[in-house]
């Protein structure tokens, strides 16, 4: 929030500091944030800390319960589950963050332009969003994967490309409200260009709801990836993601429960952390709630 001296002097710095102070008081949110940092660190360090090669099999061993050699046990092909949970986390996190970033970039830009320009442009842009909403997005992704072949980057982009719609709507509503505020009028009267106003004033001021919605998008994207991989359109063995580990684990849950429990725990932990953090951020960034 640097730049426009007027806005800064009035509310910029104090809003963010206020938010930070409020967030810090929310224990669940802080715990969620710390847990996320820990999980991200594990995902990043996987190649160095994973106990086994994720491709290594021990057919004769088969599915074994947790032991000293294999902390989380092994799957039916004798592969170390801890290793797979770690590597799967990398992919789940990558999908979650990259696809969300794509959705974020498209959605925020699109929503801001539609909201700020308004009028006919807004009407056309939002009807386009409505049309895309009406399309069965699963079929859209499947078509993309079939036409361009399967690859991980495309999967990220494809998921991002269908997840931006809600984001665009939220941002547009926010911008429409902001447009009426004095500081925008001031900026207009100072002669700033439209693009500068969007970049400098509007986007930063929509960040609150955007951050909150982002923390909610990440888990939904992770679940979507699991679904696609299960259909054979996403990650293929021997690589795996949490979603895949869970769907395979569910098939043998009666014989080998640990194959479902541990990946399930990892995914739930992440989703809970993200949700707690998202809730905390919402409370912290919404000044109206804070006044209670």
């Amino acid at each position: 929030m640097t730049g426009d001296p007027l806005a800064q002097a009035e509310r910029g710095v104090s809003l963010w500091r206020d938010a930070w102070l409020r967030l810090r008081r929310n224990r669940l949110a802080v715990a969620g944030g710390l847990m996320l940092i820990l999980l991200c660190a594990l995902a990043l360090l996987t190649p160095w800390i994973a106990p086994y090669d994720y491709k290594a099999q021990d057919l004769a061993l088969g599915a074994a319960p947790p032991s000293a050699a294999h902390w989380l046990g092994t799957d039916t092909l004798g592969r170390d589950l801890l290793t797979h949970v770690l590597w799967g986390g990398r992919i789940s996190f990558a999908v979650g963050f990259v696809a969300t970033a794509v959705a974020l970039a498209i959605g925020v830009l699109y929503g801001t332009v539609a909201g700020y320009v308004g009028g006919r442009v807004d009407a056309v842009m939002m009807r386009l969003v409505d049309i895309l909403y009406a399309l069965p997005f699963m079929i859209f992704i499947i078509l993309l994967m079939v036409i361009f072949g399967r690859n991980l980057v495309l999967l990220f982009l494809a998921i991002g490309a269908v997840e931006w719609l809600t984001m665009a709507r939220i941002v547009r509503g926010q911008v429409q409200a902001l447009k009426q505020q004095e500081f925008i009028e001031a900026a207009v009267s100072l002669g700033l260009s439209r693009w500068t106003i969007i970049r400098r004033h509007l986007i930063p001021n929509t960040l609150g709801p955007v951050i909150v919605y982002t923390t909610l998008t990440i888990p939904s994207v992770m679940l979507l990836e699991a679904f696609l991989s299960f259909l054979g359109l996403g990650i293929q063995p021997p690589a795996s993601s949490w979603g895949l580990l869970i769907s395979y684990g569910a098939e043998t849950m009666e014989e080998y429960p640990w194959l479902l429990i541990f990946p399930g725990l990892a995914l739930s932990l992440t989703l809970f952390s993200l949700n707690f953090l998202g809730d905390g951020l919402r409370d912290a960034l919404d000044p109206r709630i804070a006044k209670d």
Partner: protein
Amino acid sequence: MNARHLAALLCALIAALGLAGCGGGETRVETGNREQVLHWGNGTEPQELDPHIVTGMPEHYILIALLEGLVLKDPATLEPIPGVAERWEMSADGLVYTFHLRADARWSNGDPVTASDFAWSWQRALTPSLGNSYAYMYFAIRNAEAFATGKLADFGQVGVEVLDERTLRVTLDHPTPYFLQLLDHYSMFPVHRPTLEQYGDPYQRGSTWTRAGHFVGNGPFALDQWELNKVVVVSKSPTYWDAARVKLNAIHYYPVENVSTEERMFRAGQLHITASIPPDKIAVYRKEAPQLLHVEPYLGNYFYRLNTQVPQLADPRVRRALAMSIDREQIVEHVTQGGQQPAYTFTPPDTLGYTAPPGFAYDPEGARQLLAEAGYPNGQGFPPTELLYNTSEGHRKLAVAIQQMWKRELNIEITLNNQDWKVYLDNVDNGHYQIARAGWIGDYVDPNSFLDMWVTDGGNNRTGWGDPRYDALVLQCAPAALEREARYRCFRDAEALLLEAMPVIPIFFSTRNYLRQPGVRGLPANLLGYPLFKQVYLQVGDVQSDD
């Protein structure tokens, strides 16, 4: 979108919990037992219900209920028994068969089933524009091959002759000991001409005559309902000539691709019989409910097709290297776990007394050497290659195990790809694959059923491989042989050529492992997994199975 994902997850969870919510009241199986309705787990959704187009087992189980050929098989002995033909004679030289059709054979709309129905249907099945993969089943008949390949345009010259509406004479090209067995295969079933002509061009694919409401068949059951990916329902046909002996009122076929889901449905009392069983469950059932588990010998094998048109797979040394680096003992013992036998030949051992000598052995060292000779020392420079399988837990598990064996022994990267059954069939059919999983169940008990598919451009070959020496051995040497030993010598030579070139990698010989409720009767075990649905019935009450 959030809510939708969550709902999907919840559904999966509920399914995973063994459908606990369905408790209370009568299960589908109990109701079925009372009403003589069989609930049959059929593996996958049928590709089609046109007997002259389809190629799979799920389709087979439906079509044998809907249609009937000239001759049936006794499910206990696999000997021919009368079907539409009430009797038949074979000439002394084994070349001419005369079939006498029964007077009371009827289509489900009441029309009589006549000799000209068969002649017309066979002519349709052989017409090149239909693209019937199983056209070669007819090749024992005089001039059938020439007609199917377009060299002969006049069906009148093919050895099928309508003497009168109830007499059909078939003249063979060479004595064929298994000819009567072929007549029970869906590719030789009759179809109802007026219906086919009503719903489109009978000689093109894509006709709607197989839809429920359109379908007219001559089998013990008639098509009632075909809900995509949900169920195919057939009910007892009142016009069937032997309707008095048909005990079931209906059969419901469920396409359940996921074997774990199928097993849970069985346990929840929703299926009488499953198509297979998850490998991990076999040990559990052996211990806790052995009366439900059926492990039966099966005349079938499991193999990988190699597309020989793909540059890196065009070299037979590469193909042999791939075959030699798979540890089949480990696979049958730890991955499939269902009593399967490691396969080092293509034809299952002792197929009607025929056993081929092993064509190769598990030899990773030799495999590495072959791969190096082919220009990929230690796997270097071997292009990424894709292994295709139809979506199923069992196929996936095996593919992952073999992927790792190839990586470990040959240091080559194989990626995996799974597809829905129909898409997979389409891609394999059109050669859009590099390596593809496959299984083959003998259509009849004779080594020919395993070997004639590999002749050049054979309908079920699909590997692009062909060798004139092989064709000569299978198509000329064996049919001309007068006695069994000479015939089998031709087959052994042919199989040696096949395994030398290795367009397919045999992995194991199958067993038929499935689950069955105790009340199901009239399904004796046989090598082909062949049920005669008109003999099947359901017994109420929890009684021990006796067949």
